[in-house]
């Protein structure tokens, strides 16, 4: 309802944001966080560019009683609180982190946007910064997608976790990350009618989520002309590595029924059978779906969340300084 109000009276009225250059909150009807409370995302509209970056926050994942009931993944702490407790604060972009050490240093930190130790999201995630010295997309429209479903944005299911010790209460956990993305995409499509360039990116769980939701974002925002992907530090590798060794980095096969991942897989325009067989096939499927888009992944070799699977792919021959690869890959 909020969005319709902002859109104007008729379906052909162009979307006009309430303000430019500040983070505005949107609450898609039906989108929920882990405990079923309202999901929120934020948009910083540009007056000078029609381009768009959609960035998915990272923050772990959970798939059993211990990890989910404890509120381990980002913004799922609310699962331990009374029903209805919000998982994402309204001022989340402005106060993304609080660093006690910076509290007394406001005079020095204010030029960076850090006030009383409160660190804004732009400083934590540079791709959401408006500073073009830092961010090549600094003057674009910027969409910040917070993470609060513990499912790397793959889920479409409410899962009840039962304490194996029989002590704690059952926990009903909304793994609805993919469903939320579909609702967000619908709104973004109404906000941005013409998008010469769109970047989809994310870190960690957001890296997994940006890759797997890319076909839906790409096709769902219909005004996009040229599109790019930066899936950071959330690689999805094949079941069997080039070395012949098995890969089990994410255990995606195990979590599929818990998170309801098959809903996403079966909704893809092609490749569902291949991805069902081997989740790592999503890389090939996305590149086949969008052969003219520029798609990339990035990761540190010593990233301890993913290092085993990736590093065993390496050989002495690939440790070259810079190697060209066919486009896109």
């Amino acid at each position, binding site marked *: 309802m909020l969005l319709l109000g902002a859109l104007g009276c008729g379906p052909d009225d162009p979307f006009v944001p309430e303000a430019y250059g500040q983070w505005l909150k949107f609450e898609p009807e039906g989108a929920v966080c882990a405990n079923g409370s309202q999901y929120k995302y934020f948009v910083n509209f540009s007056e000078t560019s029609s381009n768009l970056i959609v*960035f998915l926050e*990272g923050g772990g994942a959970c798939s059993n009683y211990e990890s989910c009931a404890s509120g381990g993944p980002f913004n799922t702490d609310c699962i331990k609180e009374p029903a209805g407790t919000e998982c994402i604060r309204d001022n989340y972009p402005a106060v993304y982190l609080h660093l006690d*050490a*910076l509290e007394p*240093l406001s005079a*020095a*930190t204010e030029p*960076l946007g*850090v006030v009383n130790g409160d660190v804004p999201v732009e*400083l*934590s*995630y*540079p*791709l959401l*910064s408006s*500073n073009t*010295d*830092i*961010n*090549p*997309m600094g003057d674009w429209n910027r969409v910040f997608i917070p993470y609060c479903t513990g499912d790397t944005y793959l889920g479409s299911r409410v899962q009840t976790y039962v304490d194996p010790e029989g002590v704690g209460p059952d926990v009903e956990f909304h793994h609805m990350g993919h469903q939320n993305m579909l609702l967000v995409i619908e709104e973004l499509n109404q906000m941005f009618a013409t998008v010469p*360039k769109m*970047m989809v*990116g*994310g*870190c*960690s769980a957001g890296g997994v989520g940006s890759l797997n939701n890319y076909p839906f974002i790409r096709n769902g925002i219909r005004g996009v002309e*040229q599109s*790019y992907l*930066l899936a*950071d*530090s959330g690689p999805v590798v094949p079941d069997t590595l080039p070395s012949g060794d098995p890969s089990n980095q994410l255990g995606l096969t195990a979590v599929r029924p818990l998170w309801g991942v098959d809903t996403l897989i079966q909704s893809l325009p092609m490749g569902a059978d291949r991805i069902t067989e081997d989740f790592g096939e999503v890389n090939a499927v996305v590149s086949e779906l969008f052969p003219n888009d*520029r798609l*990339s992944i*990035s*990761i*540190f*070799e*010593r*990233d*301890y*969340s993913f290092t085993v699977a*990736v*590093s*065993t792919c*390496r*050989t*002495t021959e*690939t*440790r*070259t*300084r*810079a*190697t*060209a*690869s*066919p*486009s*896109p*890959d």
Partner: protein
Amino acid sequence: MPYYRNTNTSHCLTVTGLEDVGGSELAFISAFQEDPSAATWSGTDIETDEGTVTYKDFIESVLDDSVPLESYYEGTCEGKYQVCALDCDAYDELMCEAAVR
């Protein structure tokens, strides 16, 4: 694919390199005021035959439709987990295990 950086135990290139500049938040703030880009992307750099490539440079190349996409791997193993490098002279199984623990 850079090798390693201190920030966030090498997890995510898209986060600010807060722990790779001077060892404190204040040192980072100071470095940021001096050169925001260098401070932000510190630890993401890879030495190539053409010069240093940071993650910001990589993003710019991804966005440049006129050039082919390129992959980058860091050739120098350095940092806390250097001893874990699989194909470097420094590899030492016992030291690697100790470092990871």
